[in-house]
């Protein structure tokens, strides 16, 4: 058999060579690209942490990606996009308390003396009491509150629309800034918001939950309810409000979370 086909032996050999050549090229490329992928992954895993500033706690390239992704998805933001609302009966009776940062360590806090401090940005401040805020038109919302951890709960809140509030106190100049900063009276918890989210028609300065005044654990006397953000941005017990054109400091953005955290 071998002898009979001796002349034809060359033909299968060329196929054999072809197979070898194509195997060599494709597997070579496969392992080279695979090696490149492994190296890139190691680079990313070992990438240095970002320089701590307004944001901190995550790998520098990942922070760049978060910021770029924010810019892309902010294109879809609109005041016409509203969070889904529910009938009041759907609201949870026992509302989840997830964190008390800014509240629990503030034992000297006196709710009677509390006033909302507005930093007008020109060295002046405005102080507004709760009774005064309550005279503004009241807005209620029953919606699905979403925690960054993954749970969600239908909750019933009431207060004044932040946009109504800013309009009423003629904070036009301040509202034209790009960001709003909020912090608790003891400055232990603080958030930064882009103005468009702060001015969203469903963003409230809330003083009631389930039809009664806020309890301490839910941020008495006044808290932020901002349905276009995760719970981490819904600051409890607002002490001071400020305005700026750069990102204000943000508690969880310093712990590696996305600054935007928009929904």
């Amino acid at each position: 058999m071998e002898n009979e086909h001796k002349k034809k032996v060359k033909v299968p050999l060329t196929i054999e060579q072809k197979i070898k050549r194509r195997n060599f090229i494709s597997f070579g490329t496969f392992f080279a690209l695979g090696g490149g992928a492994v190296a890139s992954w190691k680079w990313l895993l070992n990438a240095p942490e970002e320089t701590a500033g307004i944001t901190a706690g995550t790998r520098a390239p990942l922070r760049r990606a978060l910021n770029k992704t924010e810019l892309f998805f902010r294109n879809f933001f609109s005041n016409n996009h509203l969070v889904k609302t529910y009938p009041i009966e759907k609201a949870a009776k026992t509302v989840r308390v997830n964190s008390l940062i800014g509240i629990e360590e503030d034992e000297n806090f006196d709710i009677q003396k509390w006033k909302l401090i507005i930093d007008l940005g020109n060295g002046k401040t405005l102080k507004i009491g709760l009774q005064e805020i309550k005279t503004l038109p009241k807005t209620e919302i029953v919606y699905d509150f979403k925690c960054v951890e993954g749970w969600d709960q239908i909750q019933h809140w009431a207060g004044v629309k932040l946009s109504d509030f800013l309009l009423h106190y003629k904070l036009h100049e301040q509202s034209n800034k790009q960001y709003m900063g909020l912090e608790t009276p003891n400055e232990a918890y603080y958030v930064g918001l882009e103005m468009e989210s702060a001015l969203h028609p469903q963003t409230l300065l809330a003083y009631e939950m389930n039809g009664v005044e806020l309890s301490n654990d839910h941020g008495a006397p006044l808290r932020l309810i901002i349905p276009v953000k995760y719970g981490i941005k819904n600051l409890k017990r607002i002490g001071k409000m400020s305005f700026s054109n750069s990102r204000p400091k943000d508690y969880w953005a310093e712990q590696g979370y996305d600054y935007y955290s928009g929904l």
Partner: protein
Amino acid sequence: MKSIKEKHAFLMRWTHWVNFPVLAIMIWSGLFIYWANDAYGISIFGYSIIKFFPEWFYDYFHIPQRLAEGMAFHFLFMWFFFINGLIYIIYTIFSGAWRELIPQKNSFKEAWLVLLHDLHIRKTIPPQKKYNAAQRIAYTAIILMGFGSVVTGLAIYKPVQFYWICWLCGGYHFARIIHFTLTVGYVLFFLIHIVQVILAGWNNFRSVISGFEVIETTPKIEETSSDKNPDQGDGKRA
């Protein structure tokens, strides 16, 4: 005598191998997100059958609190997952490769026969082209699942801005459950896929890297019977 038979196009191979590590990273980072609030399980009549994940699992692996890290990875690699999937779908549509991929009228019946064959219950297998009936169903389903992960992912990621996507997915809470369930589906797919790839053997595996299969053809004159299966019809493909 050997001959080369072209099997998988370059773009199919490229997107397949890009998807593998990207999906792995998406599942890994997704678990960091899930573990921040591990609420899901399967229960029947109030009796918990499976809890994702059981307590011993956390104790054993020392699952850390890495939610922020998980989110950062997830929201970067989602881009690669999406773009890679999009390239594959566009390629499949415009190359006409979809004709060999999507299930046909008789695929669902035949897939059963393929299953019986693979379980060594039945000896023969229905004739097939590039993919057998079971593969057509599985590989079309996995593409639809990928699409489902992107859509439910968007519904969870921006439930207010994409409220209509969220509505289509049955609301925020349900979209999250679908998103999680699809991931469980990927893991099951992967396990079966790996077993099938091993059973199908080297020639099949190589074709997803090199693009071709080597086919042994015995010259017709020779009477000597060979044990080697002469054509592609052994059906063990993954």
